[in-house]
């Protein structure tokens, strides 16, 4: 049985932890805000690029399927861009993604994955699983949190180059899609080769594109456009992962704060009872002593 003093110090330490988790919740909230704003701000650009790709693909017709980034790669291996977090204390954010990865691996037993990893947690996980030699690149520059469009573009170009070098069959992105504040889903999207039916140009857009001046010519524009398109895909995956990470972190920190509060109440109850008990015992002693003296 804990003594009154033990209880008092435990109440205090639980209170300290509560303060810390509360502060972390606040920090996660602000960062979440920031990444959400950036995700929203990047949307018009991504939409424009996707729209252009769709329209030009419609214009080029069946030729699109023959372009290099649209055909299966020459290699056997599969490149996986795995987006995890650098830090923990964000609930099941990382472990959900790892579980998803394991499931994907079970469903594709013949795949020979090669990893491009964002986030220290992903790197640690793969090393712990003894897949260190399957890691092709651990992307640390710049740190995930300070990632911007240019960094995403560099990563995208790195993957395109790897794909074109003929080592790979295809390139996937494994990341956490942000649905709502309390819903984030581990997701796998194919990056390369590009499936022309994914480009989804509306039928109206196709016909509208026929009498457009194209400078210098459709194929040249298209070949310049495709890398930009891939960049926006990578950028979007990074931003969504970061948003999910912070939403998840805020949520788990809030839970921790609430749990600490509950624990504090329980301990306080115990402490008061214990204190009362001690007082009663002392009183009995005094009364007993006075009785004996009479």
């Amino acid at each position: 049985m804990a003594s009154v003093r033990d209880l008092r110090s435990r109440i205090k330490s639980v209170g300290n932890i509560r303060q810390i988790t509360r502060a972390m919740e606040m920090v996660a909230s602000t960062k979440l805000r920031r990444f959400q704003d950036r995700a929203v701000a990047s949307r018009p650009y991504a939409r424009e690029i996707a729209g252009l790709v769709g329209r030009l693909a419609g214009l080029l017709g069946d030729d699109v399927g023959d372009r290099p980034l649209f055909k299966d790669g020459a290699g056997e291996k599969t490149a996986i861009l795995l987006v995890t977090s650098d830090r923990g204390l964000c609930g099941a954010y990382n472990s959900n993604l790892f579980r998803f990865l394991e499931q994907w691996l079970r469903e594709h037993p013949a795949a020979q994955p090669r990893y491009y990893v964002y986030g220290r947690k992903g790197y640690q996980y793969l090393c712990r699983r003894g897949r260190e030699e399957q890691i092709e690149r651990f992307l640390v520059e710049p740190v995930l949190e300070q990632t911007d469009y240019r960094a995403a573009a560099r990563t995208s170009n790195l993957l395109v180059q790897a794909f074109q070098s003929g080592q790979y069959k295809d390139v996937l992105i494994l990341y956490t899609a942000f649905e709502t504040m309390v819903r984030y889903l581990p997701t796998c999207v194919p990056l390369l080769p590009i499936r022309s039916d994914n480009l989804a140009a509306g039928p109206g857009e196709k016909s509208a594109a026929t009498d457009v001046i194209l400078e210098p010519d459709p194929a040249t524009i298209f070949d310049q456009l495709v890398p930009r398109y891939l960049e926006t895909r990578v950028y979007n995956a990074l931003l969504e992962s970061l948003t999910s990470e912070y939403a998840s972190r805020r949520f788990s920190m809030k839970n921790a704060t609430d749990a600490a509060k509950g624990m504090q109440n329980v301990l306080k109850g115990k402490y008061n009872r214990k204190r009362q008990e001690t007082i009663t015992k002392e009183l009995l002693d005094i009364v007993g002593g006075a009785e004996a003296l009479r």
Partner: protein
Amino acid sequence: MATDLHLRVITPDKIALDTRTDSVRVPAVDGQMGILSRHAAMVAALDAGVLRWTEGGVSRHMFVAGGFCEVQRGEVRIVTPAGERPVEIDEARAREAEARARERLRVGKSTTGEPLDTVRAELSLRRALLRLSAKSLE
């Protein structure tokens, strides 16, 4: 003065410009290209360079880092990885980038010691110089 062109510059970070104008000049890959109102629908690939337009009779400009220009029904959309007004251009950073690129080209090695990607170094030198020229036009 007619102001019947809607000019927008869209970058991954923000809408860098949203204004009405009567004429636009864009740095297309094969030379400067002028766009006036009632221009036919067009998609053009852009080079890094200076975008110019007029606003109330005053000529304005901004740096764009390549991208695409789309003209459609009185709307000019510039979709570019980076668009900066002269006030937004960080002169010190551009000078630094210029010096870095020149140094790399001179030594023939990148800062990390890997063999030099000459094309990339030349491109970054060009971007730095264009940024600086866009700044000095103000």
